[in-house]
């Protein structure tokens, strides 16, 4: 008894290409809404660049605030893509099929969004050219490779390039499908993109190998990216609560946690928006939920380690930071919300099968995880800075200003808009992957029970 009815290739083409071949009527309004938000944000950024960072509420000692928090958050989301497509590909999990591309595309766009954050956060954004790129030949001064702020661009650009290529390579066969379904100018564009794909055994074999090989190659990059982001904090000796050896794996697991939840939510949205009930089925969301229980628990382990060894040292200044995080109002309230929304609420829900198969509950759980993870980054960055160590004259708290809130909100609109535009021109679910799944599907009869099975090439 396979879940979901068998699908003919014609159906697959018709359903999955629908958003491309005919535009849904809610599409342009949605784009317009995002556009307006982005416009407001753009104006705010312009004003900020013109007047200076004074219009934020950053102060001394809290010189890193909402922007950096948001940067870490989006980098975190970007870890969904590889986590799903690569690991599940390597694990040959059948249920990956509809999820992979959406995840990878989310990776790309959230990475792009994340990169804007540190740029507008700098005091002189127009000067960042010689930050990330070795260009300043005139004075012979190149970027300082000793700083995490240079490791960041190198890792993020590597990750962005590789995941983009990952998606593009996997898109070629789907371009061929579009080439055969379109006419006129778009036909020419798609046939150009499809590179004259025929679909002979050799091409398919390499396509399949490419999936596995690239996954294996991107995995180490994906781990390195968030580790390096965590080292932006871990390398700082002056901020006691940041200088912790566990930060790298702690951040990576957290990123996977928030990222996979985000993907699950995006899948639910797609299913609802494009009517892909036959493709994104309950079993997929269910499997994601089960995976998330493991990821969340791993994350919780690292979180506990980080806190325990924070107080392990029994150093007054570090204890002070922990006290601020856990006992002093209002930060303590935020910490409570963060722990509950990141771990206890979602995991409690994910433990029950019926909850995992209820899309509403799943959406709530996934959103709650991401609220929590956003707070986590904020609660790592700001209290560490606010509660300056020994010099009591420089203690101070921080709360965001209106411009900061506007800009942070706009990043969500940006990602949404990019995803929508992508879905308008490229299929968000890999057609050939679904078709392959249909070909390999089979069943094993055991007594009266028919168990779903699949053919495996290995």
């Amino acid at each position, binding site marked *: 008894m396979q879940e979901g009815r068998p699908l003919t290739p014609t159906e697959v083409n018709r359903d999955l290409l629908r958003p491309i071949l005919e535009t849904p009527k809610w599409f342009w309004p949605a784009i317009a809404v995002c556009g307006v938000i982005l416009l407001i944000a753009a104006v705010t950024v312009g004003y900020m660049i013109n007047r200076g960072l004074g219009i934020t509420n950053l102060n001394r000692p809290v010189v890193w605030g909402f922007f950096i928090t948001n940067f870490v958050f989006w980098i975190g989301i970007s870890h969904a893509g590889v986590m799903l497509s690569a690991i599940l590909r390597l694990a040959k999990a059948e249920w990956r099929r509809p999820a992979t591309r959406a995840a990878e595309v989310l990776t790309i766009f959230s990475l792009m969004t994340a990169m804007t954050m540190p740029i507008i956060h700098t005091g002189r954004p127009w000067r960042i050219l010689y930050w990330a790129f070795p260009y300043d030949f005139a004075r012979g001064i190149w970027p300082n490779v000793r700083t995490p702020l240079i490791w960041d661009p190198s890792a993020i650009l590597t990750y962005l390039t590789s995941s983009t290529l990952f998606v593009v390579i996997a898109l070629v066969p789907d371009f061929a499908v579009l080439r055969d379904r379109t006419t006129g100018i778009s036909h020419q564009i798609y046939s150009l993109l499809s590179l004259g794909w025929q679909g*002979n055994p050799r091409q398919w074999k390499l396509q399949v190998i490419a999936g596995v090989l690239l996954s294996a190659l991107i995995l180490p990059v994906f781990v390195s990216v968030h580790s390096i982001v965590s080292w932006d904090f871990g390398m700082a000796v002056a901020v006691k609560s940041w200088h912790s050896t566990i930060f790298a794996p702690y951040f990576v697991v957290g990123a996977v946690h928030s990222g996979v939840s985000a993907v699950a939510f995006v899948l639910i949205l797609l299913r609802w928006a494009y009517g892909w009930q036959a493709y994104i089925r309950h079993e997929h969301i269910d499997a994601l939920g089960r995976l998330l229980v493991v990821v969340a628990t791993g994350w919780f382990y690292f979180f506990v380690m980080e806190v325990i060894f924070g107080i392990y040292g029994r150093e007054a200044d570090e204890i002070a930071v922990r006290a601020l995080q856990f006992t002093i109002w209002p930060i303590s309230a935020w910490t409570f919300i963060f722990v509950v929304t990141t771990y206890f609420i979602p995991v409690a829900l994910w433990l029950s099968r019926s909850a995992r198969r209820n899309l509403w509950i799943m959406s709530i759980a996934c959103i709650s995880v991401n609220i929590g993870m956003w707070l986590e980054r904020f609660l790592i960055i700001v209290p560490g800075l606010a509660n300056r160590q020994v010099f009591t004259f420089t203690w101070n708290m921080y709360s965001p200003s209106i411009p900061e809130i506007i800009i942070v909100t706009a990043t969500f609109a940006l990602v949404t808009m990019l995803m929508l535009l992508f879905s308008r021109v490229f299929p968000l679910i890999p057609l050939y992957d679904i078709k392959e799944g249909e070909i390999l599907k089979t069943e094993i009869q055991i007594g009266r029970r028919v168990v779903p099975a699949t053919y495996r090439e290995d």
Partner: protein
Amino acid sequence: MAKRPLLGLFNNANSAADAGDALKGAGISENDYDFLTDAPYPEGAFGEREEKHRLYLFPFIGAILGLTSGIMITSMTQIAYPMVTGGKPILSLPPMAVICYEGTMLGAILFTCLGIIFESRLPKPKLGLYDNRITEGFIGVLVNTDESQHGQVEDLMNRSGAIEVKGET
């Protein structure tokens, strides 16, 4: 005599595979016919020959190139303007290691992608004989033989259940 292509369309994989066997029986070399599908059928599903490739070389070459460029850019930028920061050595290896690592991976991945394109013989400037129905689940058997054999090939395919056989128009 010039070889010209002939495309047979089948609506199920078995008959396509039959056609393949028939062609092999008729003594047409395996390099002269090909199965066009809309999805990766498991290898050998049509009893076709196993495709050889050297894709695994590419990542290694790329990795080596990436590593060298990483080492060069990190060491040279530090030597070019030796400024002491935080009492760290001018050539601080651990930070260099991070960037060299990224360089290595980037090189490996770039070359892999090139390798995939190259090994799957893409891009093809001209698509050649093709049929849109292939991306709708039909299976095309593309034969490339002397025109003299076309008649024979055509009825071989028809006998193994081709719903249409067409040549270049």
